[in-house]
């Protein structure tokens, strides 16, 4: 039971505290969750500082200037903690703060007890026989069931049960109450928002929703909730920038793990796009299309992280992405073909009499085709990601409702198989978006390889059309 025991306690507490505070924020009320989390964090930092202080003080090099600086820093940190304590106590619910504060000690006691139990002779006797172990497990479950059933129904249990029925809705009652009051004061947009929330299908809780539920009257929380999608997408973009910066900060001849992974990804994307667009135009569009792929993939996968939300399940984001592609494709057409060439392209490159006669018919078809591209791109991405999220929510809700008779805040993870489906379809949709954008560039760029075109004409190979 040395320092590594304390390190393990710290990790466990961090995870348990995060999950527990998020659960409390979801099922009880967001502010209590925040109080619990703050208490646990305070206690953890306090323990870490004390540990550091003691280690430095009892260490061999305690008279070195570095150690002295460390001691000073630890003392300063503790002072700051004690200053923060009263502030937290006056602002947040004290008993939840205390509960959070005692979390690390509970973890220490439980870990120590488990250690004692694991080394004892009785434990060895129980685990040697499978049926005996199974019996003990069954007895424990039955005992826990009885103990939880004996709890007064008025307090936590019923709350949890009803919350479990409402499943993944964030701080349901408060959120909706706040929504309706906001709707009354903020006439049009608030009303629309509230209606959409109560009418539409439910969503998994996410961090911004919980924050907005915790501070229903704060302006910043309202702002965050209103621009939720933007906040998430900007956050993802910053995250990707940071990752790219980390990977390319000191590029070496023999790359480390991160640099290797990023280089492999970039190289694969480069080869893929140049393979479609050809070596002449390909390299110019690799940065745009590759970024599009990585960004969309990250946004799609972000929704699978608990308490996060994928921005691409909102039509606004996908329309923005598709419009970017649309504008860039048209710009490319004007730049590469020229004004005359562009209209020539839109008329279907008429060269003989017959094609000049059908040109007035071809033009609206081309025009509609160009306009249909962004609509189709954005609706496809939005529909897939939104549908996938809805599927996950529906099955998670089903799993929770199946166990709702126990009045426990648990559910069966029925949505687990669909998580893998979601992984697959997220990747596939990012790929499809990128490939279709690449094809749109290809269709707009001048085709100078005549052999290939003639070959295509002879074989009557199906041209890619807009769906």
């Amino acid at each position: 039971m040395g320092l590594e025991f304390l390190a393990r306690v710290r990790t466990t507490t961090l995870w348990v505290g995060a999950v527990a505070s998020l659960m409390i924020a979801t099922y009880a009320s967001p502010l209590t969750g925040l109080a619990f989390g703050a208490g646990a964090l305070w206690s953890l930092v306090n323990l870490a500082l004390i540990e550091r202080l003691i280690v430095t003080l009892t260490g061999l090099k305690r008279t070195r200037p570095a150690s002295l600086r460390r001691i000073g820093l630890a003392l300063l940190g503790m002072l700051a903690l004690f200053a923060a304590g009263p502030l937290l106590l006056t602002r947040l619910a004290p008993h939840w703060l205390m509960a959070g504060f005692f979390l690390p000690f509970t973890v220490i006691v439980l870990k120590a007890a488990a250690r004692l139990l694991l080394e004892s002779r009785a434990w060895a006797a129980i685990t040697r026989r499978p049926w005996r172990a199974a019996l003990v497990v069954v007895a424990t479950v039955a005992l826990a069931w009885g103990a939880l059933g004996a709890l007064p129904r008025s307090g936590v249990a019923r709350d949890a049960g009803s919350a479990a029925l409402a499943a993944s809705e964030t701080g349901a009652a408060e959120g909706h109450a706040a929504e309706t009051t906001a709707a009354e004061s903020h006439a049009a947009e608030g009303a629309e928002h509230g209606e959409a929330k109560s009418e539409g299908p439910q969503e998994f809780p996410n961090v911004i929703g919980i924050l907005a539920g915790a501070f229903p009257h704060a302006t910043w929380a309202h702002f965050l909730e209103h621009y939720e999608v933007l906040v998430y997408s900007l956050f993802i973009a910053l995250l990707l920038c940071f990752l790219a910066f980390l990977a390319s900060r000191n590029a070496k001849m023999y790359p480390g793990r991160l640099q290797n992974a990023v280089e492999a990804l970039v190289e694969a994307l480069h080869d893929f796009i140049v393979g479609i667009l050809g070596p002449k135009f390909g390299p110019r569009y690799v940065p745009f299309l590759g970024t599009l792929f990585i960004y969309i993939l990250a946004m799609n996968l972000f929704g699978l992280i608990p308490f996060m939300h994928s921005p691409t399940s909102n039509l606004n984001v996908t329309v923005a992405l598709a419009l970017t592609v649309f504008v860039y494709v048209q710009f490319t057409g004007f730049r590469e073909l020229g004004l005359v060439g562009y209209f020539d392209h839109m008329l279907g490159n008429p060269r003989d009499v017959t094609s000049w006669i059908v040109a007035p018919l071809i033009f609206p078809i081309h025009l509609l085709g160009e306009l249909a591209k962004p609509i189709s791109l954005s609706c496809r991405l939005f529909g897939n990601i939104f549908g996938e999220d809805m599927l996950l929510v529906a099955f998670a809700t089903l799993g929770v409702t199946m166990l709702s008779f126990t009045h426990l805040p648990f559910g069966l993870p029925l949505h687990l198989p669909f998580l893998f489906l979601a992984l697959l379809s997220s990747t596939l949709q990012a790929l499809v978006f990128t490939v279709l954008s690449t094809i749109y560039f290809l269709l707009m760029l001048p085709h100078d390889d005549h052999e290939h075109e003639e070959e295509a004409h002879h074989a009557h190979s199906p041209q890619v059309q807009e769906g």
Partner: protein
Amino acid sequence: MDFHAALSLGLPIGIGIAAVGSGIGLGLIGQGAMQAIGRQPEATAKIQLAMIIIAALAEALTIYAFVTMFLLSSKI
């Protein structure tokens, strides 16, 4: 039959019909791609790429029905 009843009957049927259509399409695409790969295994990468694109186009039709369903399901 009032508006709401018609909508709540029609939406699932509509999405089902759309799914049937793109299911047939996806099956044909898959069949064609598999045959092509069987005939020319060295062109697998190219064929798969084309297959994914066309499959996405076929699948998009169901997605449009799905999006329409979500747009209209708030009116039930």
